[in-house]
């Protein structure tokens, strides 16, 4: 059976393929390749909109952070420092701090203490070099302070735009939300180019030079923890925090996603995160969850702790508690 069928099929196929080229097929092929060319031109169009010097060959050819040789990374960081000076007129020191041995960061926030003053959100801006149009602009802050009605943990009914004369308002309570550095991070899974990943100390980082700006991670994040640079970041030279690392608060290029890194430029040097240092009520607790004597472990053992949106299965490293 099969041996009889085969020669027939083969002969048909050969006839199809060996048709002489007609004017029609030539034009068809021509039109198709024109469409293809137009597609290529459209894809390259953003290049036309680049300012001079915005994108160097080095940028285009740079490898993923994890595949960089130490010498290459060193060279890139020096180049980024020069960029920062050239574009923003500010000196910076860009380092590459690695996760420490036996360290896993975790954060806890005392909702009984938080008064919603937003000092954390503003300190985040001062520390992490986010884009801002004026000193009061905190739209790019990694922290959103939600005002909620007492009686329920209803995030959907909350607002981040509250602006009374004094806080706290009667009948309201406040819940700052930032990156939860999830153990099962949906943003990491969503990234099509592996430009965001989780480090050994639990911090989810972004290689801004590898990010393609598709914003899938933002759609995947249930905590609204990620920000996108729709425009070239604007920041006053005097406001640039010179203490920077490659994976955290260096000034980002346009078109990439950024996020809270638990201030890894501070915390990997043993310091507390900026948002914690300015909190006037001491609502924020940070530390090494692997150290049984740490404050964060005291909270987990002794306080009434919950995680936000437990049902989405993200297993956050950020805990809320009451006391």
């Amino acid at each position, binding site marked *: 059976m099969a041996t009889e069928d085969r020669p027939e099929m083969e002969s048909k196929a050969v006839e199809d393929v060996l048709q002489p080229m007609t004017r029609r097929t030539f034009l068809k092929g021509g039109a198709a390749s024109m469409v293809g060319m137009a597609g290529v031109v459209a894809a390259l169009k953003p290049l*036309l909109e*680049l300012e001079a010097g915005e994108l*160097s*060959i*080095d940028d*285009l*050819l740079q490898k993923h952070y994890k595949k960089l040789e130490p010498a290459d990374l060193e060279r890139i960081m*020096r*180049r980024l*420092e*020069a*960029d920062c*000076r*050239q574009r923003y007129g500010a*000196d*910076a020191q860009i380092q590459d701090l690695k996760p420490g041995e036996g360290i896993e960061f975790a954060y*806890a926030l*005392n909702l009984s203490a938080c*008064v919603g*003053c*937003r000092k954390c*959100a*503003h*300190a985040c801006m*001062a*520390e992490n070099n986010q884009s801002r149009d004026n000193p*009061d*602009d*905190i739209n790019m802050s990694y922290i959103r302070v939600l005002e909620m009605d007492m009686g329920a943990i209803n995030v959907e009914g909350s607002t*981040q*735009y*509250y*602006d009374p*004369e*004094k*806080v706290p308002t009667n009948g309201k309570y406040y819940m700052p939300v930032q990156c939860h550095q999830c153990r099962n991070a949906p943003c990491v899974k969503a990234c099509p180019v592996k430009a965001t990943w989780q480090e050994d100390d639990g911090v989810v980082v972004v290689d801004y030079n590898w990010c393609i700006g598709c914003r899938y991670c933002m759609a995947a994040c249930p905590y609204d923890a990620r920000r996108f640079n729709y425009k070239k970041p604007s920041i006053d030279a005097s*406001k640039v*925090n010179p*203490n920077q690392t490659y994976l955290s608060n260096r000034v980002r290029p346009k078109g990439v996603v950024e996020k809270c890194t638990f201030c890894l430029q501070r*915390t990997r*040097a*043993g*310091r*507390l995160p900026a948002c*914690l*240092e*300015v909190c*006037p*009520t*001491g609502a924020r*607790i*940070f*530390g*090494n969850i692997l150290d049984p004597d*740490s*404050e964060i472990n*005291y*909270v987990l053992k*002794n306080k009434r702790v919950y995680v936000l949106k437990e049902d989405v299965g993200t297993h956050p490293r950020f805990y809320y508690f009451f*006391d």
Partner: protein
Amino acid sequence: MSTGAQTGQKRRRAMVYCGIVAIVGSLLTVSGCSRGEALDADSATVPAAVEINFESHLDLSTPRERTGLVHTKGSFEYDCMSCHRSLKANWHLPEQLMEHRGRVLEHGNNRFCLNCHHPENRNVFVDYDGSEILERDVVLLCAKCHGPQHRDWVAGVHGRQNGFWDPAMGEKIKLDCIECHDPHSPSFKAMEPLTAPTYPARAAGKLHPVTDREEEGTEHGH
């Protein structure tokens, strides 16, 4: 004219970019010499050290100023005992005395001066057994009543901390009770919130058409 020239220039630049990308891409294996000349010149002028400050850009002011056991009048500061050597200790605030007029005690059930202040030595505080608590140990005075808060403060989960989470790297600074709470009126005071994020203009604009359509819908329904 000038815009045409500019776009032409841009196109040319883009074409150059594409060309360079293609060429350098094919020669990737021998890359390493692909650095821009201009940037090389820039990095040659990098200053040796950039001044790093971990705190100057953060508002680390304590919620409350620690005044201490001093009585200030004009530009003069008085030791408590300069008056109280001769004045008897009072359980209640003396209304008739000028010096403490205006002082309000809003400390819940704690209504008596001598619950905290030492009856004989007014420059220190008093413990349950009448022994003295120095002003620098004021945390122990508060712990007389606020056991759970003191326990949490010792554990590092009540009150603000500054400095280092990692004791191997540096010191952790804990604020004392009275650097946040006014001992005569300890409940945390309402404060002015810092500026809010701005409501996205696009979302704000979209609100109107939606409500218009909804209204039209109800009219048609009638």
